């Protein structure tokens, strides 16, 4: 097994873990944590393909991931703010009870 395959397997595992968490947990913050895990799985993939790719000296994947993390931080901030707002409004953070978008 090459190091790239190991990395990809790891990232797939990480993604599956995050996805399972995001889908199954009822608490909004835990769902956010799941989403962050999925995002990091994607970052691991980007690093892996850069590190074991044809031009590892070019730093492209590294820069890409740096942006991605900044994005993730901003997303987390917005997501947490939404959770707080919903909690204030609904007095709950259980996502099953937040279904105003019902058609």
């Amino acid at each position, binding site marked *: 097994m090459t190091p790239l395959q190991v990395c990809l397997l790891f990232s797939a595992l990480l993604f599956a873990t995050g996805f399972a968490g*995001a889908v199954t947990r009822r608490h909004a913050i835990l*769902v956010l944590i799941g989403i962050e895990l999925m995002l990091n799985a994607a970052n691991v993939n980007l690093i892996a393909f850069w590190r074991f790719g044809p031009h590892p000296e070019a730093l492209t994947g590294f820069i890409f991931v740096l942006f991605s993390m900044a994005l993730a931080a901003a997303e987390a901030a917005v997501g947490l703010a939404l959770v707080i707002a919903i909690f204030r409004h609904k007095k709950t953070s259980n996502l*099953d009870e937040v279904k105003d978008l*019902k*058609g």
Partner: protein
Amino acid sequence: MNWIVQYLWLIPVLPMLAAGIIAVNKQPQRKLAATLAIGSMAVGFLLSLCAFAATLGHGEGTFREVFSFPWIQFGGQWMDIGWVLDPLTAIMLVMVTFVGMLIFIFSVGYMAHDQNFMRFFCFLALFAAGMLGVVIANSLFLFFVSWEIVGLTSYLLIGFWFHKPSAAAAAKKAFITTRIGDLGLLLGMVWLYAQTGTLNFYDHGNGCLEQSALTAMLAHATVGGFAVTTAIGLLIFLGAVGKSGQVPLHVWLPDAMEGPTPVSALIHAATMVAAGVFLVARVYPLMSAGALPAEHGAPVTTALTVVTWVGAITAIFAASIAVAQNDIKRILAYSTVSQLGYMMMGLGVGGVAVGMFHLITHAFFKALLFLGSGSVIHGCHEEQDVRKMGGLKKYMPVTFAVYAVGMLALSGFPLFFSGFWSKDEILHHASNWSASHVPFYLGCAGALLTAFYMTRQVALVFFGKYRGGAQENTADSHADAHAHGHHQPSAHETGHDQTPHESPAVMTVPLIILAVFAVLLGFVGTPAWPWFDGYMTGETVSFDFSKLTESGTLELMVASAVIVFTGLGLGVFLYGKRQRKTVEEKDVLEAAQPALFTLLQNKYYIDELYEHTVIRFNALAAWFCDFLDQWIFGGAVLLVSYVTLGLAWLYRLMDEKLVNFGFDAGCDSLRGLGGGSSRLHTGRVQTYLRVIGVALVLLILFLVWGRKA
């Protein structure tokens, strides 16, 4: 161009401004109203004198200057309006402004007690504006506009005391009757415009009364071989017939006496009714166009023959009616109709100068007579029935003196009074008329009757004993005074002032001035010194005493004097010698010839004839139109509305049962579809995420195995 020609428009515009200012002022400013109206007339009179002076002393040929400017455009053509100054205009201007001014002054006294003093002067000033517009107009268009203003004010002033039903009816009658004539004038005007392309009378050779246009029109002939000029001339004459109260449209003029007496004097004796005569004089070139050169005297054409006959018949017809009337103003009204007939006859047989001379002299002495009768009516407390007067000579000496002058002038008393000279000139030309001598005999008979009825009137009013008194003075005049809106707290109600009284100076002074002119004016047109003729035709004349004794002239003067003396003598014999004692007593003529007298008193039953023919026909036509309107046209409209209603009902049915049904079904199914699909949207974020996950797995499976297969 003479400066006065350019400023001629001021003469009619000033009274119009006065009327406007009076109209916008408040009721109590009587002094302002009277001052404005009289002042505008006085300024107009001075300007008229300047205009008159400008027309004098031009040697051979007539003085004529015009001032025109384009007014409105229709199609590619401009309609011009403008004014003309020639002897005809100048003499009318002087007469209208002078007589008008005197009558305005008289009105201040006559209308002193009337509540609607302001309205009266507003209308009078407006009338003066219209009349002066008629006089100066150089286009038939402007003429017609002014003519209608005059007709309107005539209507307004006849109906001035409109709360009297008889006055309101008389106003309507006057307006509608003259309308019949005006229709003819309008048609003539349109036809003239179609023929010549202009309505200007004189326009430096291009006007419709000038030679080129007349020659062009004479070349055309209409039905019956008449020249177009004849047809147009007769249509225009129809307008003159309506306005001047000629037979058969004379019926409105005696009824018009319902208006205040100054109105009768100004409008229905001196000026407006003379406008018809003036119109014929104005379009005289059109009327006389195409005449063969006559051996002596005036030209003879079909149009002028009609004018002559209408005038002659009117003259004798109205004079005979006047014999049997009892209302002082009605006698004068029929006399006016009769004299207007003379003027028409004069125009027909002798030309412009002859007719106009009588118009001018008549304006003065008839205004004098009407104002005199106004003074009498005023003095007798609004009494108009001559049977209830009598003996006024004693009570009203000034009025009697001036009235006698007017009466002698109207009768044509020889040598010293204007009426004699002007009437004599007409008769003189009538006797020389080449077409027929009958108008001459009719004129002579009319002159006899004129002298007779005027003697009768004066004898009844001024001689004998006063017959009005306590018993008559209560009901009638009381109602009158009330109806006139008078507020006389005084006098004849309390009973101690039953006797007639002389009128104030504001009324008698104009009378005296008019009387002076009624005498003097005749001397400008005697056979010895026919200045007026020369002035109108532009020939120089000289004083030649021997012309008085020329053969023909002298015989006629003697004959006419004999006629007048016969009439006067007959009047004195029948009415002067033995005065009626009571109001109820039968008239002398009535006792002798009851049938004839009744016929005359009822005006030959002309009103009744019209009642049973024209008005009956009109009512029938109106009923028919009403029937058409209600049942035929109304029915058609109703039918259309029902069809529309039926269609609307059908549409509603289709809409509700057919169209709506389809749409409803469509809507229902769409709504169901929407409801079903909305059930997928649970609102739970994790469900969506799950679906995304499953879809992702399925996608990957498809990509991995789908490619291999």
